[in-house]
């Protein structure tokens, strides 16, 4: 709960700063709050938020998934290929792509559980492997959808009108649906309870009769499935994918969003709302940099700097509270 408060405050402060800095005296408007900018932000939040929720599933179990960006690339290249080159109808191509990406997650999970490989190694190799295969498969050609996707593109670019000149982007609604589902799983089902138990203490969970192996596999499956869904949405948004660059570094956005939102890298801790807010912060920060500096050169530097300051501040405050809370006590608590 405290972490949620922290990230909310940070988000509000940065949004306020962006609003203040983005005042355009010529037009008399705050560019940050303009319908165009907000719609754009919320759409991107929807797209990246889905990836962060997937990453969170794995991190909660104490693992990591570095292959998210590469899986986005697989989905982004396969969807146009199936629809345009193979002539599959969109309603068949979409589930087929999701099944392939879920299969990738299943494969990761089996390697990690069955062969006891490190999640870092398995998914890092996945990152290299899938992108490399996709580049060969597409011969580095851009895979375009043209007009073949038809109404399916509404999933990524559509808007539900709310008022004059402003509509809620459909990807945000997709994210809301998946976040709700994740929340239900995490807080209302035995599966969720077992996931967190596994992340907190794998051995004790196993000794309590939790099927830790099977559970770990499901986490990687969900992560890749959501990365696949994200990839589909991304390609529907821009209408084409280029294997060498599509989804590059997206795993880092996904992981950073989850971790900023309070999902502990050691596992066993996390709140869905936090992940969504973390993902939002990962969109608002670069947007602010663009508005304030008029270029994106400093984007990475500012994102990195703000996260670092946030983490350091969190630690300093926690120590201060601990010291005040328990006077005369030294050393770590027993």
């Amino acid at each position, binding site marked *: 709960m405290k972490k949620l408060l922290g990230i909310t405050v940070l988000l509000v402060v940065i949004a306020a700063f962006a609003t203040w800095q983005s005042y355009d005296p010529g037009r008399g408007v705050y560019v940050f709050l303009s319908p165009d900018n907000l719609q754009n932000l919320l759409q991107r939040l929807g797209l990246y938020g889905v990836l962060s929720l997937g990453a969170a599933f794995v991190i909660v179990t104490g693992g990591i998934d570095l292959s998210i960006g590469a899986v986005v690339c697989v989905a982004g290249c396969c969807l146009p290929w199936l629809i345009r080159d193979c002539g599959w109808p969109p309603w068949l191509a979409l589930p087929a792509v999701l099944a392939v990406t879920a299969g990738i997650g299943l494969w990761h999970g089996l390697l990690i559980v069955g062969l006891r490989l490190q999640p870092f190694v398995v998914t890092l190799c996945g990152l290299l492997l899938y992108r490399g295969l996709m580049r060969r498969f597409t011969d580095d050609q851009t895979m375009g959808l043209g007009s073949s996707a038809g109404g399916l593109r509404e999933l990524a670019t559509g808007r539900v009108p709310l008022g004059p000149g402003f509509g809620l982007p459909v990807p945000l609604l997709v994210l809301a649906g998946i976040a709700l589902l994740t929340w239900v799983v995490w*807080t*209302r*089902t*035995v*599966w*969720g*309870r*077992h996931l*967190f*138990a596994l992340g*907190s*203490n794998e*051995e*004790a*969970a*196993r*000794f*309590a*009769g*939790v*099927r830790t192996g099977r559970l770990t596999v499901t986490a990687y499956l969900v992560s890749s499935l959501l990365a696949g869904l994200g990839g589909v949405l991304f390609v529907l948004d821009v209408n084409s994918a280029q294997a060498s660059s599509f989804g590059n570094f997206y795993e880092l956005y996904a992981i950073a969003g989850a971790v900023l939102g309070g999902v502990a890298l050691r596992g*066993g*801790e996390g709140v869905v709302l936090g992940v969504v807010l973390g993902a939002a912060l990962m969109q608002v920060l670069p947007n602010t940099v663009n508005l304030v500096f008029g270029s994106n050169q400093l984007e990475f530097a500012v994102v990195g700097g703000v996260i670092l300051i946030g983490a350091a501040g969190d630690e300093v405050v926690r120590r201060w509270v601990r010291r005040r809370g328990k006077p005369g006590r030294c050393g770590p608590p027993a």
Partner: protein
Amino acid sequence: MAAPLLEARGINKAFPGVLALRGVDFVLQRGEVVALIGENGAGKSTLMKVLAGVHTPDAGELRLDGVALRLSGPAEALRLGIALIHQELSLCDNLTVAGALFLGAELRRGPFLREAAMAAAATAVLHRLGLEVSPQTLVGALSPGQKQLLEIARALRAEARVLIMDEPTSSLTQVEAERLFAVVHELKARGVGIVYITHRLGEVARVADRVVGLRDGRNSGELRRDDIDHARMVSLMVGRELSLQRRTPHPPGEVVLRVVGLRTAAFAAHAVDLELRAGEVVGIAGLLGAGRSELLRALFGADRAVAGSIEVAGQRLVDHDPRAAATAGLVLLPEDRKSQGLILPMSVRENLSLPTLRRRGRWLDRRYERELGARSWRELDLHGGNDQVGAGALSGGNQQKIVLGKWLAASPKVLLLDEPTRGVDVGARAEIYARLHALAGSGLAILFVSSELEEVLALADRVLVLHQGRLAGSLRRDEADEQRIMMLATAAESA
């Protein structure tokens, strides 16, 4: 007569809540091997650490060559020639043998290592011990026995005059152990004094010139070379009155656990058969490393057994895991509560419901959790907050009660307990005993492992004794006493 090599007089040492050593005397002559024996917790380790400068005694004095000592730490002890060889070997696997030998005392010229000089010196020391490996070998590539010799080589390199060895043969093969005995003899001949700590009484008779017994932190007597025999050593170690009440046994019911030909991975050479009846309480005794925990873990399915069949109430478990065992009614309270029994960051309530939640469907049954939490809190008489605090915030005794409570909610038929009262204070201990009695009375079969003989004798209707993975004997409650158990555990009587 010259002053003894090492002399300790009236050593007292207390830890919070425990008086570990009370007025202990200990003398070691040059060229003498003294075996230090006693039960777990008798104070052997503490005494050894006092001698090696790891602990500072609260009272008493140490003398080396008749000169009073105040050791500031193990480094100073080593400088004076007192070397401690740990039970768990403390060598870095990725160093070379020469590197490990000179770690912390490297030969150098300015900032540069004199590799050649160290290698030559290492070769000489290793040769003296009969450890014929190149100084360039990585420590990780050595066998446990070779590592043990390397530890000794390190002590020799530092020109140790007092060598304290803690269970040196626990990880050695027979051949390696023979090699070690030969080295001990050679060192003795060169005037090194050796303190030899072991549970294996057979070894004592082979290497020791004198035996010093410790019991409950006090000297319990000495044996000269000619008096060393198994029975006398056992009576030095035990032979104290029981302070716990024996319970009245319940008439046992039908067989609920039948184990045939179980072979654990650690002791695949020995098959274990056992039967447990409803209402019966059976204790497993044995020394450290006798395979007691391994047996329980294999029964529970936490480790894969190599072979054998396990039947719970007539239902056979094949290739099972903890979940299948728990479903069949066989549950384990593991040895390490904090890492295996509980999920410390989770609340008491969530820990209590963890094994049984799934029996109530896919959705979290919060009402069940709430009721179970409240009921368990009351019935187990838990203290320290309420059922919503983190399990890590409670005391050891209360934590153990939570582990018990979470399994009682699963209505088990057989309860396996590994060291049920380790780290539990006296009050909570009595409560746990009373609860186990009551559970047995209500028809539960209980199989427990304990390193405390008193506990085994007070609780068990029947005692099984393990020795190196083998069932060395089974004693009815009227036959069981500390002497007999120790005899079997140290394998003096081969059944």
